[in-house]
Structure formats: structure tokens, C-alpha cells
């Protein structure tokens, strides 16, 4: 059964009716364990059924972080006796007392079951805070039951994981938060512009706990990941910092808007867009000469703006065949409507629909993103998640360069895309 749908026939925001769900073996996106581990020196404690615990504890094991992980299982008797509060308090107390040193932060993950049984978590946290006054207990949740009708666990985690940071005297620094990829001077205009103006950009990579607390000094918080927007917006409000959500887009007009907005917030002069666009146009021409009519497939894991990227490539004459996505993000609505009119044959393909279990490409295309690589069965793919830390004109140039590299080189997706948490330490 062919699952692709011409974009002209698709409906916004849900082009497909998804019933039973298939989980493709593509696991590069960071999960709550990877995300929580960004809090330096923290530990994570999960309280859940065995089957639920298995995925998170093995995530920790594969990223060589078992020493920062505690699992607590729930058995039937804990549920039926109605003692889940006591069970949480006793087991967490026991587990923390067994450690040689108490961590500064313990991120606690109760689950759907606690929510469903109305477990009194306020009581639990009150008791734990009284027993361990030096530990900041972060109130996270692993409750996927709620994610289709509310916030997903990772979205909420990106808010509460910063709970130990307190407002400090603000300096000129910028904190780029709510994302799991690193922006560099070469790949991101945000870093380049800030650095050129002698402003420090903080990102979570390689921080110690004091650096983490010092994020309270940042005068501005920026997020380029839609899944981080809720959390970082809330953090900024709490810390009294300026906040900007800047979308990692690829078309010149949007890039200009985002960069101008950034410069305005920093009170610095706008950059010379004309010169930068010329450089991008040259790069487009060069890439077109290299890859010609090579078929391109894009997925939503590679970038939060897959339709925007498809639009830009199509407008420059590239042969984009399809975009893999299950829903259309709100910030892509305009691109969706544009593509419907201008490129009606572009195909949309779901990734979790049950019938996708039996869809596998011939390996002829070039994929942008790990899910597209899996479904297209291609060894030519751009292996990035969450936009890859690409932003602005530098981001666009980096993307074009990555496409060229993918064209010239091969990698085995079967060995790469099932690995969890791209960019994290991996023992596999």
C-alpha cells in the first residue's frame, strides 16, 4: 500500500490518519534521559514499571551514564496497597543515602500511573526536600499518555531542568538553550554575530555545575528548537531575561527577519544581507552542478523546518521528491500552502503509520535526515537532527555543504540511525 500523498491533496495540520503506530528503528533524536543529562552533575530517578524503565535505563547505559541513573520499579502490590507516596519516599531516600556524595540536582520522573492514581507528589517532594535540603529536586514526568493532548515529557523537562538556576546580576551574555545541538561560529549566524560583538554565547555542552548556575547572569535567552520554546520562554520569565524564539529557516526573507530581530534585541546594527545572499546563491549553483537531478528526500528529524527546506531547494531547481513527516508544524503553515500551489507533486510520507512497516526505498535518493535515510534505504544521507546547529546564512551554507558531502560519501544507515542521541557518548 503506497502511503505517500501529493502535497496538493494534503490537509493542514494532519495530512494522515494515524491509527496503530509503527516505530521505525531510527533513534537519533534525544530522549528525556539525554536531555536531562545536560544538567551537570545531576542524577535522574525514574519510578515506573519494569517495561517502561528498560528504555530509559538502557539509554543511560549506552551513553555511559549509569552512575547518574537510579531506577525504581513499581509492582502490583505497590499499586493495590495504595502506598505509592511512601514507596517513592522510601526508595528515593534509600537510593540517595547509598551514594557516596549527594548530587546537587536530582531529576525525578514519576509516570502516567502516578498521575492516573492521583499520587500526592507535593507530599513526596516536601518530604524529600526536608530530608535532603542540599539537593534540588526537579519535578519532571515521564507521562507519554498526555503528550498527544498536551505537552510532551521532553517539552516539560526543558522547563524544569533549569529549576536550580536563580536570577543573578545580568551581564552581556546570551544563553542558547532548549536544544540538543551545538551552534558554532561556522554554522550559525547567531554565534558569529554575537561573538563578533564580543558577547559570550552559553550553550550546555561541556559545562560544570557552577557554569550551569551562572546561566542566571545571561541577559538574553534564545531557543531555535520548537520543542524547547515552552520551557525556555518560562525560564526567561522566571529569570527576568529577554527571550527570543528564532526559527531555523532556510529562505532569505525569513533568515533576514530572524537575524534582524536578533540584532535589534541586542542593539547592534543589521548585517549586510545582500553579500550573504550572493554567497548562498553561488553555493546553490555549485551544488546544482554537483548533484544535478539527484532525487532528494527530507525528514522532520533533520530540521524543524522540513517544508521550508524543501521549498528553498525546489525554488533553486533541485529535485526534492518527498518530505517525511507525521504532522505539519504551525510555523510551516505558510510553506505548506506555498508548496501546495507551486509544487503540488511534492509527496508527503508519514513515518509512524502502521503500513510504513513495509515501505522501503531502492536506495537511489539522497536523504536529509536519519528517518528519510532509513525509509529511502540510502547510504547517501545528511546525518543531522534538530537542524544540526545550522542557523541563518551560515546555516544555509552549512546545509548545502552537508548535502554535497552526502552526495560524495556513503554511510551505512543500519549501523548509524538506530543509535540513540546523536552527539552523545555512545558505547555501541
Amino acid at each position, binding site marked *: 500500500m503506497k502511503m505517500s500523498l501529493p502535497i496538493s491533496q494534503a490537509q493542514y495540520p494532519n495530512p494522515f490518519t494515524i491509527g*496503530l503506530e509503527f516505530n521505525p528503528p531510527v533513534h537519533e533524536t534525544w530522549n528525556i534521559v539525554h536531555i536531562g543529562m545536560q544538567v551537570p552533575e545531576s542524577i535522574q530517578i525514574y519510578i515506573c*514499571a519494569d517495561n517502561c524503565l528498560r*528504555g530509559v535505563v538502557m539509554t543511560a*547505559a549506552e551513553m555511559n551514564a549509569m552512575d547518574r541513573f537510579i531506577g525504581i*520499579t513499581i509492582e502490583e502490590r505497590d499499586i493495590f496497597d495504595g502506598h505509592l507516596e511512601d514507596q517513592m519516599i522510601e526508595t528515593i531516600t534509600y537510593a540517595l543515602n547509598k551514594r557516596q556524595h549527594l548530587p546537587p540536582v536530582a531529576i525525578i520522573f514519576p509516570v502516567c500511573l502516578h498521575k492516573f492514581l492521583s499520587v500526592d507528589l507535593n507530599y513526596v517532594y516536601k518530604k524529600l526536600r526536608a530530608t535532603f535540603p542540599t539537593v534540588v529536586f526537579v519535578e519532571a514526568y515521564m507521562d507519554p499518555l498526555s*503528550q498527544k493532548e*498536551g505537552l510532551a515529557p521532553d517539552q516539560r523537562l526543558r522547563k524544569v531542568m533549569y529549576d536550580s538556576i536563580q536570577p543573578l546580576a545580568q551581564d552581556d551574555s546570551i544563553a542558547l538553550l532548549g536544544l540538543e545541538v551545538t551552534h558554532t561560529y561556522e554554522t550559525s549566524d547567531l554565534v558569529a554575530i554575537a561573538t563578533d560583538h564580543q558577547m559570550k554565547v552559553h550553550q550546555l555542552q561541556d559545562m560544570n555545575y557552577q557554569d550551569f548556575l551562572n546561566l542566571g547572569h545571561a541577559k538574553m535567552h534564545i531557543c531555535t528548537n520548537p520543542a524547547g520554546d515552552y520551557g525556555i520562554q518560562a525560564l526567561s520569565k522566571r529569570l527576568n531575561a529577554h527571550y527570543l524564539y528564532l526559527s531555523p529557516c532556510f529562505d532569505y526573507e525569513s533568515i533576514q527577519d530572524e537575524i534582524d530581530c536578533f540584532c535589534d534585541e541586542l542593539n547592534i546594527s543589521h548585517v549586510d544581507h545582500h553579500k550573504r545572499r550572493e554567497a548562498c546563491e553561488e553555493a546553490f549553483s555549485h551544488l546544482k552542478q554537483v548533484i544535478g537531478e539527484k532525487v532528494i528526500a527530507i525528514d522532520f528529524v533533520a530540521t524543524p523546518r522540513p517544508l521550508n527546506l524543501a521549498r528553498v531547494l525546489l525554488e533553486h531547481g533541485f529535485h526534492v521528491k518527498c518530505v517525511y513527516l507525521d504532522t505539519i508544524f504551525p510555523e510551516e503553515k505558510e510553506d505548506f500552502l506555498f508548496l501546495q500551489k507551486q509544487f503540488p507533486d511534492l509527496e508527503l510520507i508519514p513515518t509512524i503509520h502502521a503500513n510504513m512497516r513495509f515501505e522501503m526505498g531502492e536506495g537511489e535518493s539522497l536523504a536529509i535526515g536519519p528517518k528519510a535515510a532509513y525509509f529511502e534505504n540510502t547510504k547517501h544521507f545528511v546525518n543531522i537532527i534538530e537542524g544540526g546547529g545550522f542557523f541563518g546564512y551560515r546555516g544555509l551554507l552549512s546545509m548545502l555543504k552537508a548535502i554535497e558531502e552526502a552526495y560524495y560519501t556513503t554511510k551505512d544507515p543500519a549501523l548509524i540511525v538506530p543509535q540513540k542521541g546523536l552527539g552523545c557518548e555512545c558505547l555501541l
Partner: protein
Amino acid sequence: MRCVYNRLPVYTGDISGVASALYELGGLIVIHDPSGCNSTYNTHDEVRWYQNASRIYISGLKESDAIMGNDAKFIDDIVQVALDQHPNFIALANSPIPYLNATDFSAICKKLEEILDIPAFYIPTNAMHDYTHGIALAFKALASRLPFENYAPTKKAINILGVTPLDYTPRETTTLLKDIFHDYEVLSIWARDTSLKELQRAASAHVNVVVSSSGLRLAQYFERTYHIPYVLGSPIGDFKNVLFKAIEEAMTTGKSQNPLLNKEVSDEHIIIGDAIIGHSLGNALYTSYKMITPLEESKRIIRTRDLASKDEEEIEQALRKAQTIIGDPMYQALTSTPVRALPHLAFSGRLYLKNMPNILKGGILDEFK
């Protein structure tokens, strides 16, 4: 302390066990779960997922549907996929929230059978047990719905029960097993490299050989229902000769045999893992040894001084006097005595997949001596 895992992971869960047991049989396996079960399973507990397609899905349960009891969506979604994909059967596995709100899976199965005319059965998991329990439930549920055929074996016939990649990971496992048991006609292997059609011959076997604790309940079901005796043991090293003898004894007497528990218990040599595999290894290697098993279906296959426990401290205590320890490398976290590595997919997942030994090959035992 009960339920606390400070240094070790948990074993693969019951839901993943169900999926692993039924993976190759052409059924539609649906886990009634919001998210996560399928990802955990295919990432850490399933080596076939990338290359071999199987119809294992989650329902994607939403909070409002759980609260309002919207089973109609669940049924409709299954019907749609069944109509598209024509499975041999439908198996439904439970997870914590439908377990808590007492979703009536038996009624749902009945409804599905009415609509689709495909066998549908329920496997009562709840995510709070380990994979051995899940596999045992799945095999038993399948066997109780399978229309067994009368088959006339050409020679003495056996089934091999309890073979999934969770315990027997290497690809060549079933080839090796058939080779080892070449004096017998192997009617079915539950459940790897075996079709549903072959499983339907299983009731015509003379003896069932149970090679992991996951297969024990199925063996007992066959014994009760079809009067087929079973023998516990895995054909590891020289222990296979003991096993062959026990199989002959079972064929002659019609009585089940357990040749695993005849040696003394000692704290000097310790084996950790599945009890049937562990005891078979212990018998092949030592004159006395101690078995430690954290697995639920293994608890019934231990001697008085063996240890059935998931408690990290109890296991740590038991390891203190050991001179040799055979087990998954992750148990090294509990002891300074070097653990002789026998990686177990159901424990360390993919971590040691590249160096997974095949315990059915003779040479590997020399490393443990």
C-alpha cells in the same frame, strides 16, 4: 532494597517478551500503550527489527481515550490494519494504564474475531514483569488458540521450547540446535526460524525440550493437554549427553525429566542468568556451583541454596565468596571479582552485541573453565 536499581539495569520487560516470542509468526501484535513500549523493544531488545519486518505496533493510547474508555478507536484501528495487512492472528498485550482501568481485552478480542474472522487473543501483561513471564504468557496463549495438526513424524520427534533472541541471540542458533538434535525430527522451535505452520505440528512430538525458562509453562501446557513429557536443559558442552539421556528416558517412561538440579551448591563458582541455561552451563563446567537468577520463570528451577533475587544487595552479598563468576558483564558493577562475560541481550541489550558468544558452540566453554 526491593525495587531499587542503583547500579544495574532491569531485564527486558514482559511486553517486549511477548513481541519477541511472536515476532516471526505473521501475527498482528498490538501493545495498548501511549508510547515507548515499541521503541524500547525495538531499540534494546530486538535484533531483527531493522532487517525483518514484523507487524508489531502500539495503539498510541491518548489520555482522553483512557479516561473515557474509548475502546472503539482501539478496535477500529486494529481492524483497519488487519484489513490492510492480513495477519495470521491478532495478539493484544496490555500496559499499565489499560491494566489500571481494567480494559476488557477478552471482549475486544471477541469483537475483533466477529468483525475480521481472524483468531484474536489477549496476553495479560502489565509491564511489571520480566520478559520470561511475557514469553511464557505469549506461548501459552498462542498454543491454546492454535489448531494443532496430526502429523506423522519420520523418526522420534521433539519440539524445542524457549528460543528467542533474548536468550539465544546469535543468528545461527536454530541451525546449531537442529544439528545437535540431529537424531530427532525437530518439529518446531518456539519461536525462531519456525513458521506458524510448523508450530501447528508441535502436538505430534514425543518430547518437548525446554532450553530456557521462558518455555517451561508451554511445556507444562503440552504435558497437561497433549500428554507430552518435557525435559529441562540446554545442550551446552558435555551436558548435552545428560540431556540426550533424559530425552530418551522421557520417551520411554512418558514422564518429564529435570536433569539440571543434581549437583551440589557451592559459593565458589557462580552463574547468573536464566536458570535452565545457567544450570546447563554449571553442569557442563563444574562439580558444584551456585545459580543466581533474577528471572521470574526461573524461580521454579533452583535448588535450596541457589538464589532467586532481583535485589542488588542480595546478589552482591552472594558474589562475595565467589572465585569465578559467569554472567552478563554489567554484573561487574556488583563485584571486584572479574566476571567472565556471557552477555545477555535481555540484560545489557545492544551493549555487547558485537561480541556475543554462542554458548551452543563447544569452544566458548574453555574460556569459562
